[in-house]
């Protein structure tokens, strides 16, 4: 396979999950994320001739995506004429006026935890992208989408023991890939 070339037919299978998750943690809205990702693919198609092959296809698409996300926020803010600042003012009708009742619940996830989990999700997807495509797809179907064994076996025309071998290999590579930062 030639390195650093573009294959738009493969983009969705290879990168959609990563790009989508990258976007959704930043815009927090499924529909908007969908729009941004498809805009990214289209922008990629339109500027294929500008691809110099210095970066990988993946990096290139991510850089387009980043610009699209910035564009989205710019457009959003300029429409209102100013940046939106959300503040939560306590309503005196609500329960819990005592200060003690307003103290953050420690069992709640902190923003930092949430951020770490998002990073983790992206790291997992990035590692999965390094596996071969069939392995990654089957692993994602089984583990993330939770599709049952029989359905996957039928779709790929493999036996259950084949499936377990594939999943086992995928998990081993994934663990190795995550080892440095997350284990």
């Amino acid at each position, binding site marked *: 396979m030639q390195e650093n070339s573009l294959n*738009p037919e493969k983009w969705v299978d290879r990168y*959609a999950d990563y790009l989508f998750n990258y976007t959704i943690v930043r815009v927090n809205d499924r529909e908007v994320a969908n729009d941004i990702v498809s805009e990214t693919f289209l922008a990629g198609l339109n500027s294929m001739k500008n691809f110099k092959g210095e970066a990988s296809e993946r990096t290139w698409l991510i850089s387009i995506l980043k610009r699209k996300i910035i564009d989205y926020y710019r457009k959003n803010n300029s429409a209102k004429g100013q940046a939106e600042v959300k503040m939560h003012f306590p309503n005196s009708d609500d329960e819990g006026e005592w200060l003690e009742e307003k103290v953050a619940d420690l069992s709640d996830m902190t923003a930092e935890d949430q951020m770490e989990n998002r990073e983790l999700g992206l790291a997992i997807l990035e590692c999965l992208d390094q596996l071969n495509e069939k392995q990654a797809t089957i692993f994602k179907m089984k583990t993330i989408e939770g599709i049952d064994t029989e359905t996957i076996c039928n779709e790929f025309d493999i036996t259950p023991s084949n499936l377990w071998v594939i999943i086992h290999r995928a*998990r081993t590579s994934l663990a190795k890939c995550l080892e440095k930062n997350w284990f």
Partner: protein
Amino acid sequence: MKGLNLMKLSCAEAASVCTKAEYKEAGLFEKWRLRLHLHFCRTCKDYYQNNKKLSSLIKKANITPCSSHEKEVFKAKIKNGNSKTS
């Protein structure tokens, strides 16, 4: 002797049962044989624990997959865009 062989599990088999167990698809007898194997085999025990950790990491990450429908929409858009540009 035959009964003993039935109880034994090679490391490769143990790994496979380990994986299945993470998806709650290992049988009762398999799980029992795995427990037995883990008693004697340090390597598999480490693997088993790592595997558990991986599962919890994946769960924690809470990845939002694109649905296959959404992917089809992307593909159709790319196809349309491609025919326009070429």
